């Protein structure tokens, strides 16, 4: 168990070195050992009794009433899961901050923010300075729902129920960080990025999914267990991670059951449908969405904000089909939770 505990050592060192670059190498060294263990120690870690939490490690930003925050139980559930399946010790109760210039922020190396938990992303000078300082001193921000496809931007709540893969961050977020770090910009995380395999590798078993959905998930939706994420580096280190909403898939109730129903949006076609779609009437809006390869999809909503079909750059039109059943919902929860565990493992291990 000595090896299995080493990520905690890494984390402890990271806490000590937080904001002190002169000793940050210590945490990196321990992290390297810790990660090695995590890659090989999954089965062992699962069998152990959860370690008592070492104390709060994660801060969560909520502007206003924290009881009204988005997916209130999601982060605690995920942190419990991190403690359960890895040898990291994460206190399931995050510490809340209401402003980015709250001095308490600097006690926590990781800040979780749901984009919709801040009504207005126009920060004042004090908050901007604090955010810049925090990131320059080694802090990490996980901005959930920081990627909102164009059709989701009219209302922050839309982005809470659509995990739509776009390859650019929400413009207000992009503008903010461009001001804080003019030399840096959000870049897509490559599919081979170590974050995607920090603890879990690949997809959960897809055999429970309907045939059509299974094929789409494996080949297009989440290839090799990855999904659209964008990162901003500060001093060469991944400092801000933006994702489409993930928290929708984390929350469990006190009996260990998932609290939300999640459906899949799948692109489908059949012979002749492309032509029919190109002529079909729609009463929603039409949006351009950036693809991973830099080209553009044109999404038609029928009605807004529900994507109905898409014109792809190769000229093909496909329809969005919405599949929902318990197997799909459970699968989505499992996947999002694995992604969440990977993110926190990557970050808390000192990466």
């Amino acid at each position: 168990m000595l090896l299995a505990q080493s990520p905690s050592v890494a984390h402890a060192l990271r806490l000590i070195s937080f904001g002190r670059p002169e000793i940050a190498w210590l945490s990196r060294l321990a992290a390297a050992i810790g990660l090695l263990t995590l890659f090989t120690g999954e089965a062992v870690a699962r069998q152990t009794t959860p370690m008592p939490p070492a104390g709060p490690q994660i801060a969560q930003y909520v502007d206003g009433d924290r009881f009204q925050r988005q997916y209130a139980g999601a982060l605690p559930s995920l942190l419990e899961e991190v403690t359960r399946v890895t040898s990291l010790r994460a206190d399931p109760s995050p510490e809340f901050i209401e402003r980015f210039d709250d001095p308490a922020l600097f006690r926590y190396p990781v800040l979780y923010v749901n984009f919709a938990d801040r009504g207005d992303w126009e920060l004042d000078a004090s908050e901007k300075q604090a955010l810049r300082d925090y990131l320059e001193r080694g802090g990490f921000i996980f901005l959930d729902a920081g990627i909102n496809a164009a059709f989701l931007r009219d209302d922050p709540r839309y982005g809470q129920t659509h995990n739509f893969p776009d390859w650019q961050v929400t413009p207000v977020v992009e503008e903010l960080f461009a001001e804080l770090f003019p030399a840096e910009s959000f870049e897509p995380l490559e599919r081979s990025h170590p974050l995607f395999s920090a603890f879990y590798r690949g997809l959960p078993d897809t055999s429970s999914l309907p045939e059509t959905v299974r094929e789409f998930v494996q080949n297009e939706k989440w290839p090799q267990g990855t999904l659209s994420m964008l990162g901003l580096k500060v001093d060469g280190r991944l400092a801000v991670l933006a994702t489409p909403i993930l928290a929708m898939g984390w929350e469990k109730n006190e009996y260990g059951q998932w609290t939300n129903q999640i459906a899949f949006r799948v692109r489908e076609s059949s012979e002749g449908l492309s032509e029919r779609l190109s002529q079909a009437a729609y009463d929603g809006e039409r949006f351009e969405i950036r693809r991973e390869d830099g080209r553009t999809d044109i999404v038609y909503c029928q009605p807004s904000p529900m994507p109905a079909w898409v014109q792809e750059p190769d000229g093909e039109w496909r329809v969005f089909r919405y599949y929902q059943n318990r197997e799909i919902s459970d699968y989505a929860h499992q996947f999002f939770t694995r992604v969440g565990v990977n993110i926190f493992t990557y970050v808390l291990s000192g990466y």
Partner: protein
Amino acid sequence: MLAAALIGPAVTFAQRPVPIQLPEDPEAVRTVVRALEDLEADDEEVRTGAAMLLGKYPGPEAVKGLTEALADPSVRVRRAAQVSLLAMLPGLPEGSLLALIRTIGDSDVEMRRNVSGHLGLLTQIWRSRRSGYLSRDPSLSAIPGGALTLPGPVAEAIAEALGSDDPATRRNILTQLPSLAIRVEPEQIAALIRDPAEAVSREAIRVGVRYLTSGGVAQIAAENLATRSPEWKLTLIDSLRRYNQPEVVRLFESLAQSEDPQVAEAAQVQLFDRDPSGPMVGELIRALRAGELGTGASVTVIQALNRLPGDEGRELARDLARNSPRASVQAAALGEWFQMEAELPDTSTLLEIFEDSHSTVREELVRLLRDRSGQLPLDLVREMTFSRHRNVREGALALARELPPAAARQVLLDLMLDDDSRLRLDALQELARRRLPGWHGLLLASLRDPRPEIYQGAANLLLFDREGEGLRLLREWVSEHPESDVAAYIERRLGRTFAPTN
């Protein structure tokens, strides 16, 4: 090719009773007519595409075509029609709802599995249509006061599908069984508890107590404990935790000896809850102190502490309230400790807890103190105003609202010294709201504050003083300081400066 995505929590029909929308746009009508023609094509690919496209036009014609397509000889077409119709919920008429439910008997396993997860919702909407409760369209609410149980053949098809060869279908039906109101024999449930597929068995245990006695469920479950997983056993413990029949207690005693630590712990917690003087008390309390128990188990044990003999429970609750490795446990212990103590703990102990690093603990203490507002010592609340934790200082403000005027004034004056301008403004507002002595003077002094949120907030409070004295004072102040930021703010706010006072 690109990745697609998810949509989130399904909106329940009860939240959004949306009737079918009739297409009015001629373009949409043309699209639907063309798709309906395609639905008659010989080529199953064309029919499949039509069924997909019609799903985007939830009008009566499209719904009728899709409902008929549920009987198409091609499984691809049937699947496409089923997914399209399910996406139109809740706006479907009775006939389409029943046709969808009947797909539980389809020859294709994916059709059966897909609808099995929607049976509860489909039945609920169907009942609403029958009673006319939800529909805004009179044609959809045909038989007010009609029978609300599913037609016999449909109910029989569901009951038969409980014996489906697909475990996911069996499990999904079991999950929704209570809301389907169909007749199921207890023997069938007992067989499903014995189901080799654990997911099915776990679901059967959850609903089992509605069809069998809790003792009956415990007896069947005890037959093959050795072959079941820890997760299955945890489900069993959770499902039976409210029952005290002897078979249940015996089962817990057996599970308390499990080699799996989580199962043993969960069973021990249940036994402790029933008899806090039992043999496992020492180990459980050790685990509780060490933070090794899960949150739910910890709370169960903490809530039973008041039944420990003598002062042991109270002392333990007090210790845990002051120091615990888990914030949730500490907060629960704090609540339990307060319940056991008639008097408030001493101020120094409370201040010590207010220094705790967990915000949830500090906030729980504020909440408990608000419930004891009649016992609040002023020195405690005043000390809170100097805490390094913002939420404790906010707590002081909340508690000040419960204090008599003189005491509240002292606390609010302390808060007026706070570095945090929002807190300071809140204190100012409370002073003004209660019209505590000297509030006008404080507001006037705040007009000199360099921070816009403070001087603007103070100006607003004076501006809207209902008795007019504040307005007069503000007018005087602005006339004495015409070049001030406050004067400029008032001009912006009102679109003009104050008229000269006579």
